[in-house]
């Protein structure tokens, strides 16, 4: 008995939580197929929004770990660790991060460090400096 289907509906005061809900009945939630996509990200079309996204900055590493090196898979390690690369000389802008993610090497950064930086950016988590900037860059590519 992994699930108890007889529990009463819990979200009585939360009408938005169950868009398929029918009063007095439990909603049916279709989980669908693994391959089915359910998220579409809308690219901001406003110039001002795009500008702020491209000008935001991602410090590598975040200030709390200043000076640490970055492994090829994007983790932070002690300075001078073998196989890891030195942090970039300055924070990466959203525009530069976008280029790096697309495989380009913007001026001012060591091209051989690109992969490590991209993997660091991909690993950014909520609460880490630069996460919001990275999240803002997330949009489907044509």
């Amino acid at each position: 008995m992994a699930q108890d289907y007889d529990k009463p509906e819990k979200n009585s005061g939360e009408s938005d939580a169950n868009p398929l809900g029918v009063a007095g009945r439990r909603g049916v939630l279709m989980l669908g197929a693994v391959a089915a996509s359910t998220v579409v990200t809308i690219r901001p079309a406003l110039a001002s929004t795009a500008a702020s996204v491209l000008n935001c900055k991602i410090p590598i590493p975040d200030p709390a770990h200043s000076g640490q090196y970055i492994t090829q898979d994007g983790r932070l390690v002690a300075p001078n660790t073998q196989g890891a690369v030195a942090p970039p000389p300055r924070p990466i802008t959203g525009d530069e991060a976008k280029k790096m993610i697309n495989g380009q090497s913007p001026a001012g950064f060591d091209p051989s460090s690109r992969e490590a930086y991209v993997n660091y950016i991909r690993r950014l988590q909520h609460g880490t400096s630069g996460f919001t900037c990275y999240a803002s860059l997330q949009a489907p590519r044509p």
Partner: protein
Amino acid sequence: MTTAVAGPVYAADPPAARLSVTLDALVAVYHRPSGVTHLLAAPSPELLDALADGPADAATLRDRLAVLYDLEGDGSATIAARMEELVVAGLAWTA
């Protein structure tokens, strides 16, 4: 009680960080921290809501949804796939 953690544990911003508007079968979600809007189809909005109770892996999320809904379809594998989509979109992350 032992909990077998089979896959990644997911987390999301609290519901207050999102502005959601239901559009019949779709839900438009404006993510305030990133300023980006997403269109979600079931079961993704429900998964985000289920994360309001705290970080969880796919199996735990399935159990949380089963309290509220009659689930149809594959279980944890589908939920894990949907969570990966939400991670890529920036609406969730692996804890």
